[in-house]
């Protein structure tokens, strides 16, 4: 018996691709390749005596559902947001390091030494290391450049970068706070005494 409801392969394919295309993880080029795959598969199945509708159903079933494909495509089609977030973290981290470097000059600004008193040894040490505060942002910039240049982003999620930069920032903040704390207390005492 003839199939009365006319099956149109092109329409069925278009609808199937539209459904897949709703996923933001699957790009237009991926859809184009999947379409080419289904068409090849349909042609092959038809040579085995299946109707175009049967061939289409089997071919699309073999490709897999959107729910199955989406996470796999998501692994390779990283959104540009990953790169933007890397950039934002780099800017924030650099500004924070520069700010901490500025705070390190605070003891000297307070005319602490004008009174003839030497800065505490730890403060002197950290102030001496001040120029090295440029090193972490520099390394972070090199890492970001590597991430931006690499096309495949597997394992280069921004969360790891964020955690590392924040850990370094906390460590540098701690050093700076301890270094500045003693001179600040002494300065306050002087003010009160005056």
């Amino acid at each position, binding site marked *: 018996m003839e199939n009365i409801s006319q099956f149109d392969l092109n329409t069925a394919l278009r609808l199937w691709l539209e459904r897949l295309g709703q996923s933001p993880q699957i790009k237009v080029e991926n859809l184009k*390749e*999947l379409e080419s795959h289904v068409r090849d*598969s349909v042609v092959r199945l038809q040579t085995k005596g299946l109707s175009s509708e049967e061939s289409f159903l089997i071919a699309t079933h073999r490709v897999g559902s959107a729910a*199955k494909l989406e996470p796999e495509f998501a692994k390779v089609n990283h959104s540009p947001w990953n790169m933007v977030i890397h950039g934002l973290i780099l800017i924030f981290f650099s500004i924070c390091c520069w700010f901490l470097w500025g705070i390190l000059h605070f003891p000297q600004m307070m005319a602490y030494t004008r009174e003839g008193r030497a800065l505490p040894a730890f403060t002197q040490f950290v102030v001496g290391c001040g120029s090295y505060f440029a090193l972490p942002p520099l390394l972070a910039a090199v890492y970001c450049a590597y991430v931006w240049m690499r096309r495949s982003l597997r394992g280069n999620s921004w969360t790891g970068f964020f955690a590392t930069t924040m850990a370094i920032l906390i460590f540098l903040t701690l050093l700076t706070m301890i270094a500045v704390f003693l001179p600040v207390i002494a300065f306050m005492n002087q003010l009160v005494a005056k």
Partner: protein
Amino acid sequence: MLAKELVAASTVPLVLSVLTQGESYGYELIQRVRELSGGRIEWTEGMLYPVLHWMEDEGLIKSEWREAETGRERKYYQLCKEGRKALHDEKQQWMSVHETLTKLWKTYPSST
């Protein structure tokens, strides 16, 4: 039928090996592996494409959209120099597993 994990682990060496015989496209790659394995290696066909794109990003293979004999456009994949190197490494690893298992099964036939 092969276990899911083994199918996933063998996808890259299988693709690389098929491509040593010349360029190919997604559907043909799947058919070739199905034939060679006697139907024991069954891929969820759509899953192959993300793997192919990852392999391309890693520089193992390269691709090109070209008009096929059907008149439609197809994406053809080709092996790169990096891919040959990767295949060499994969081959050594798979052969060492194969040799170890073969030796074990020969020495202790009861384990087969």
